[in-house]
């Protein structure tokens, strides 16, 4: 699949907004909303998928109700730059089931991690047993997530 920028008209943008709220809308439903036939709506979705704009579906669950009441963002700095292997760190951190997101960043930290835990005690366990033992780990900063809100951004 080739990623690239394609021109989007107002209908495409509207469809992206609709799908980013309800990702499992069918082409028929999208067509009705935007005054298109089902095949025409399907072709537009397909085109945006092929351009890599619509990557995949995300399932949003009530983490707290499922027993994961704590989400923490960690800023991680590696200990000795140049000497530790990014690959080793990345391989190990990705394998931790409580780590949902790993981003390589540029700034006061090297990585941003999103970690879920049942409660603060469980988070401490994850931090001590799983995070602090990662290869090359230096400094860690933790911030506990209170609220999150996604915006339509430039599509809005």
């Amino acid at each position, binding site marked *: 699949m080739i*990623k690239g920028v394609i021109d989007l008209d107002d209908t495409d943008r509207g469809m*992206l907004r609709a799908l980013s709220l309800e*990702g499992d809308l069918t082409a028929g439903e999208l067509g009705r909303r935007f005054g298109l036939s089902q095949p025409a709506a399907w072709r537009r979705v397909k085109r945006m998928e092929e351009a*890599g704009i619509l*990557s995949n*579906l995300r399932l949003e669950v009530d983490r707290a109700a*499922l027993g994961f009441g704590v989400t923490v*963002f960690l800023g991680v700095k590696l200990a000795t730059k140049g000497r530790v292997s990014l690959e080793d760190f990345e391989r190990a951190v990705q394998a931790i089931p409580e780590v949902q997101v790993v981003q390589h*960043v540029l700034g006061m930290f090297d990585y941003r991690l999103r970690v879920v835990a049942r409660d603060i005690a469980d988070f401490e366990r994850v931090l001590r047993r799983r995070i602090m033992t990662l290869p090359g780990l230096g400094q860690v900063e933790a911030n506990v997530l209170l609220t999150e809100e996604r915006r339509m951004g430039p599509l809005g």
Partner: protein
Amino acid sequence: MQVDDTDRRILRQMLAEPSAPRSLLADRAGVTAATLARRVERLRETGMIRNVRAAIDWRALGFEVEVSLRFTLDKTNPRAFDEFIAAAREVPEVVAIETFLGRVDVRLNVVARDMGHYQEVYRARILSLPHIAEVDALMLIATIKDSEGLPL
């Protein structure tokens, strides 16, 4: 609502690969397609599943730059959070707003077409947000893992 082992198995499979066909997810969870459909319906009705949404790839949309801006607010003003967040919602390049307990109070995820555009947004729209005490930026180089998976 009580979530049982069957629900957990289904959720584990769906969280791991939400785009997979339902019949495949049912197989992996060891239930029939009808059971899966019924359980998913119930999980949605009770709010355990909040939403199924399509992820948008901002880079593919032409927004090459993604920055995580982390703010400490001037909390001597009791309305600092509300006013900051209300103003941040007005910035079109902001794609996510998160609040925290810790050194960072608020994080904004900002996308821009290129560094020139980012500089413009940062100077004109971000630095003028109210009640900022401190700000630091983490520029996204690569996303290594991004999942909603839970160790259920």
